[in-house]
C-alpha cells in the first residue's frame, strides 16, 4: 500500500511530514495478531467444513485402498490355488510316467522301479511327495503265491495286511524311497480301506488319476501325525480295451500311486512363497454321491491348516476367501485369510495421510481466514486512513490550485513531479503531461544546457532563493511562447531525495507595466526637458525686448531728467521698476530651470563658508538694510554643489531682509545642529514671521505673501526647496507671526569617514 501524497511516503522519522494523526502502516498491519478475529464465526465455519471434507476424503481413500488390497488378496488366493493345482498336475504326470514305465518294461522288477524313481528326481523337483509306489491287485487265489514271491525277493516278513479274508486284495509292491517310513506300508492292502478304495475304484472306472479323501497314512507313527491323501493312476493290462467301465474293471492290474502327507506337501509346495495368506484345506468329497459318512470328521476337520502354531482364527483378518478346487475327482475347499504379513506389507497410511493433510489444511485455512479477517480489518482501517489522507490531499490540492502562483515540484533528476493549476495554465500542459517532462523542456532552447549545471549547483547548495541573477527568465509554453517569469526555488527534503519547489510568477503584465512606465518616464523626461528648454527660451527671449525697454527707458530718463516734472519722473520710475521686477522674475525662472537642469561638482562644503559667500553676494542689500547677520563659530560640513547651496543661503538671507518688521533692524542668526542623523543649518530672523497657514504655500513657485512688495519674484523659496530636494535634504519653516521665522536646511549626515558620494 502506498500513500501518494506528495510522494513522500515511508519518510524516516527525522524528515517525517507532520500529520495531524500519525499513522504507521507497518504497525497497523503487523502488530495486530490474527487471533484478534477468533471470535468471528467465519473461521470456525471454514474449519468445520474443511474437517468434514477431510473426513470424507479420507473415508473415500480408505475404501479405495481397501478395494485395492482386496484385489491383491484375491490374487494371492488365485496364486495359491494355481500353485496347488499345478503341483498336483505335476504329480499326476509323474504317475503317468510310472504307468508308462510299467507298460514299456517287460519285467519291471524292484530294482528297475527304484532306478526309474531315482531318475525322476521327484523329491528334489517336487518336494512334498511321500513316496512313489506301485500297488497291484492280488486275487484271493494267488495271495499265498504272491506273498511267497515277494518273500523270495528277500523280504522274509512280507505279507499282505491287514489280515483277513476279502474278495480281492491289493498289495503295495514297490514304494520308493524305500525308507523306514515307507516300509511300514510295504504290503499294505489299500483296497481294504474304504476311503482309499473309493478313490481306487474311481480311478479304475474312469481311467484317470484320482485322489482319495483324507486319510491317515500307514506310514504315520504317533509322532508328527499328518493328514494325508493318496493319488492313484490305474494301470491296465497292456493291449486291453478300455472304452467302458466294464472293460477297465476287467483290465485293471494295479495302481501307480503316491501317498502325500499334507503338511509335507504344502511345505514343499509353499517353499519360497511369502506367507501373505493363511489357509485351511477341507475335503468336500468326491463329485460322486459318496457319502460323507465315510469320514465324518472330514467335513469339519481341515486336511491342512497353515501356520499351525498360531491358529488362523485367533485374530480377525482383513480379508477372508474360499475357493473350491477340483482335484482328482475330489473337491478341496480352501479357506483363505490374509495374514499379518500381508496386512503389514499392504499396510496403507494413505487415508491417514489424507486425513492429516486435510487436518493441517483445515487448520491452515482456519488461520488464513483469521489472518484474512485481520487483514481486512486492517485494510478497512487503512482505507479509512487513506480516505482521510485523500481528503487531506484534496484540501491540499485545492490550496495548491488556489495559489495565484504557478508551482512545480521537481525531483533532483529534473523530472517534474507535481504541478498546480496555475502552472498548468501558464505552461499550457496538463498536470499529467508535466509529470512526464523534465524541467528543462520548459525552458527556451538556449537556456537548457546551462540550466542543467544550474540545477546541480542548486542541489549542492539548496536554499530558498530567486532564480537568475536579475536577468530575464523565460518559460517556454506548449505553444512555444517565451513567457517572462520570475522563478523562486525552495528545497524540500524528502525520503526519496530532494524536491525543489519552483514558484513561477508570470510577469508579462508587470513587464508590460514596467515598459509602459519606462516609456512614460521617457516622455516625461522629454517633456520636462522640453519644458525647461521652453522656460529657458521664453525667459531668454522675453528678456531681449525687456533689455531694449530697460535700455531705452534708462536713456530717456537720463535725457529727460531736466524736462520731466516730478510726476512724470515717478511714472518713469514705475516703468523702470517693473522692468527690473520682470527682469528678476525671468532671471529666477532661468535660475530655477538651470538648477533642475544642470549638475555641478559635488564636494564637501563648509557651511560657514557658504553663508559668507552668500553674504558677500548680498553685501549691498545687507548694508542698505542695516541688517546684522550672526554666524555661529562652529559650522558643519555638508556634501553638495557649492553654487546651489550658496544660492540657498543667499535666498534665505535675502528673504529675511526683504520681510523685515517695520521699525526693527533685521537680525539674522545662522546656527547649526545635528539631529536624527541630519545636519541642520538654521537661518533665523526677527522679521514679520509667517502664519502657519502659509507654511506649505510659500515654497511653491510664484507664491508671494505680500503681492504689494516691490521686491522678490516669488521664486526664491521655491529655489531653496528645489536645491534641497536636489541634495536629498529638506527645508523646514518654524515661524511665529510678528516675531520672526526660522528656516532650517536639513542635510542627510554624510557617512562616517568622510567618503563622498556623487
Amino acid at each position: 500500500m502506498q500513500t501518494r501524497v506528495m510522494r513522500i511516503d515511508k519518510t524516516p522519522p527525522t524528515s517525517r511530514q507532520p500529520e495531524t494523526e500519525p499513522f504507521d502502516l507497518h504497525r497497523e498491519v503487523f502488530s495486530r495478531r490474527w487471533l484478534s478475529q477468533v471470535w468471528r464465526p467465519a473461521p470456525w465455519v471454514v474449519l468445520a467444513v474443511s474437517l468434514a471434507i477431510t473426513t470424507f476424503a479420507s473415508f473415500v481413500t480408505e475404501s479405495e485402498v481397501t478395494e485395492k488390497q482386496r484385489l491383491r488378496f484375491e490374487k494371492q488366493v488365485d496364486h495359491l490355488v494355481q500353485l496347488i493345482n499345478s503341483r498336483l498336475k505335476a504329480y499326476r504326470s509323474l504317475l503317468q510316467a510310472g504307468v508308462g514305465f510299467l507298460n514299456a518294461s517287460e519285467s519291471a522288477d524292484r530294482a528297475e522301479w527304484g532306478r526309474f524313481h531315482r531318475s525322476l528326481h521327484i523329491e528334489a523337483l517336487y518336494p512334498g511327495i511321500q513316496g512313489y509306489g506301485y500297488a497291484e491287485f492280488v486275487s484271493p487265489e494267488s495271495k499265498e503265491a504272491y506273498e511267497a514271491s515277494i518273500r523270495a525277493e528277500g523280504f522274509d516278513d512280507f505279507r499282505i495286511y491287514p489280515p483277513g479274508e476279502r474278495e480281492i486284495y491289493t498289495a503295495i509292491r514297490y514304494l520308493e524311497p524305500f525308507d523306514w517310513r515307507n516300509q511300514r506300508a510295504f504290503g499294505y492292502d489299500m483296497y481294504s480301506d474304504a476311503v482309499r478304495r473309493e478313490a481306487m475304484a474311481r480311478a479304475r472306472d474312469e481311467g484317470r488319476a484320482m485322489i482319495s479323501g483324507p486319510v491317515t497314512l500307514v506310514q504315520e507313527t504317533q509322532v508328527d501325525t499328518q493328514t494325508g491323501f493318496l493319488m492313484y493312476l490305474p494301470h491296465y493290462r497292456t493291449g486291453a480295451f478300455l472304452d467302458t467301465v466294464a472293460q477297465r474293471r476287467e483290465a485293471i492290474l494295479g495302481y501307480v500311486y503316491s501317498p502325500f502327507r499334507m503338511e509335507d506337501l504344502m511345505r514343499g509346495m509353499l517353499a519360497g512363497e511369502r506367507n501373505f495368506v493363511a489357509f485351511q484345506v477341507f475335503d468336500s468329497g468326491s463329485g460322486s454321491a459318496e457319502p460323507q459318512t465315510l469320514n465324518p470328521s472330514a467335513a469339519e476337520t481341515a486336511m491342512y491348516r497353515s501356520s499351525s502354531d498360531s491358529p488362523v482364527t485367533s485374530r480377525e483378518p482383513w480379508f477372508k476367501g474360499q475357493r473350491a478346487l477340483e482335484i482328482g475327482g475330489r473337491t478341496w475347499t480352501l479357506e483363505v485369510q490374509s495374514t499379518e504379513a500381508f496386512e503389514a506389507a499392504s499396510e496403507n497410511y494413505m487415508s491417514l495421510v489424507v486425513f492429516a493433510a486435510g487436518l493441517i489444511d483445515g487448520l491452515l485455512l482456519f488461520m488464513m481466514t483469521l489472518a484474512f479477517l485481520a487483514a481486512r480489518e486492517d485494510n478497512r482501517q487503512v482505507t479509512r486512513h487513506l480516505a482521510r489522507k485523500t481528503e487531506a490531499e484534496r484540501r491540499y490540492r485545492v490550496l495548491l490550485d488556489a495559489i495565484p502562483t504557478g508551482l512545480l515540484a521537481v525531483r533532483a533528476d529534473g523530472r517534474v513531479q507535481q504541478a498546480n493549476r496555475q502552472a498548468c495554465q501558464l505552461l499550457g500542459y496538463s498536470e499529467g503531461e508535466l509529470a512526464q517532462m523534465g524541467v528543462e523542456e520548459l525552458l527556451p532552447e538556449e537556456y537548457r544546457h546551462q540550466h542543467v549545471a544550474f540545477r546541480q549547483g542548486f542541489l549542492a547548495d539548496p536554499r530558498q532563493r530567486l532564480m537568475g541573477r536579475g536577468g530575464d527568465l523565460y518559460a517556454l509554453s506548449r505553444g512555444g511562447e517565451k513567457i517572462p517569469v520570475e522563478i523562486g526555488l525552495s528545497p524540500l527534503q524528502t525520503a526519496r531525495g530532494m524536491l525543489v519547489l519552483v514558484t513561477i510568477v508570470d510577469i508579462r503584465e508587470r513587464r508590460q507595466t514596467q515598459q509602459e512606465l519606462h516609456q512614460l518616464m521617457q516622455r516625461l523626461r522629454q517633456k520636462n526637458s522640453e519644458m525647461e528648454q521652453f522656460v529657458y527660451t521664453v525667459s531668454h527671449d522675453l528678456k531681449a525686448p525687456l533689455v531694449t525697454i530697460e535700455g531705452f527707458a534708462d536713456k530717456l530718463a537720463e535725457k529727460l531728467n531736466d524736462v520731466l516734472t516730478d510726476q512724470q519722473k515717478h511714472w518713469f520710475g514705475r516703468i523702470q521698476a517693473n522692468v527690473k521686477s520682470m527682469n528678476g522674475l525671468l532671471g529666477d525662472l532661468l535660475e530655477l530651470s538651470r538648477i533642475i537642469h544642470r549638475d555641478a561638482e559635488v564636494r564637501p562644503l563648509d557651511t560657514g563658508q557658504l553663508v559668507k559667500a552668500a553674504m558677500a553676494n548680498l553685501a549691498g542689500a545687507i548694508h542698505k538694510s542695516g541688517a546684522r547677520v550672526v554666524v555661529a563659530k562652529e559650522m558643519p560640513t555638508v556634501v553638495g554643489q557649492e553654487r546651489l547651496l550658496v544660492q540657498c543661503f543667499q535666498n534665505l538671507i535675502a528673504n529675511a531682509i526683504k520681510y523685515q518688521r517695520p521699525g526693527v533692524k533685521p537680525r539674522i542668526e545662522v546656527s547649526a545642529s545635528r539631529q536624527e542623523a541630519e545636519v541642520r543649518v538654521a537661518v533665523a530672523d526677527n522679521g514679520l514671521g509667517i502664519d502657519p497657514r502659509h507654511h506649505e504655500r510659500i515654497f511653491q513657485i510664484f507664491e508671494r505673501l505680500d503681492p504689494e512688495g516691490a521686491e522678490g519674484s516669488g521664486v526664491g523659496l521655491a529655489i531653496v526647496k528645489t536645491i534641497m530636494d536636489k541634495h536629498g535634504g529638506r527645508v523646514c519653516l518654524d515661524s511665529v507671526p510678528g516675531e520672526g521665522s526660522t528656516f532650517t536646511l536639513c542635510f542627510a549626515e554624510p557617512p562616517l569617514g568622510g567618503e563622498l558620494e556623487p
Partner: protein
Amino acid sequence: MSLEILLAEDNPDHAELSCFALQKVFDGCRIIHVSHGEAVLSFLEERAQGEGLPDLLVLDIKMPRMNGYEVLRALKASTDLASLPIIMVTTSSDEGDYRACLRLGASGYLVKPIKAGSLRDCLQALPPPVRAAARERTR
C-alpha cells in the same frame, strides 16, 4: 587716436543701446557693428592681414550662425587673434556662463543692457590702452 571697438550683436536695439554705453565710456570711439558670429571672424581675419585689429571686441553670446562661445573659442585658438580683448555680453546673467567665459579667456562679462557703470567695472581687466581711452566718470 580714437579707440576702435567691434560690436557683435544681432539685435539692432541692443546694438544701439550698447553703443550708448560704449560711447559714454570711450568718448569718440569708433564702433564697427556686425550682426553674427561668422562676420566677426571674417572681419577680424581680414583686419589681421591688413590694417590691424580693433582695440576691443564686445561679443553677444546668443547670436545666429556662430554664437559667442564659438567665436570666443575660435579667437583664442588663433595665434593672430588671441590677443584681442573681449567683453562677453548676455541677456540673462548666469554664474555658470560667467565662469565659462572667463575660463575661455574673455576679459569681461556684462549683462544687457550694458550700463556705463558696469562697463567701467570691468575696465581693469582690459589692456592699458583701452583703459586709458576710458573717460573718467562724469558724475
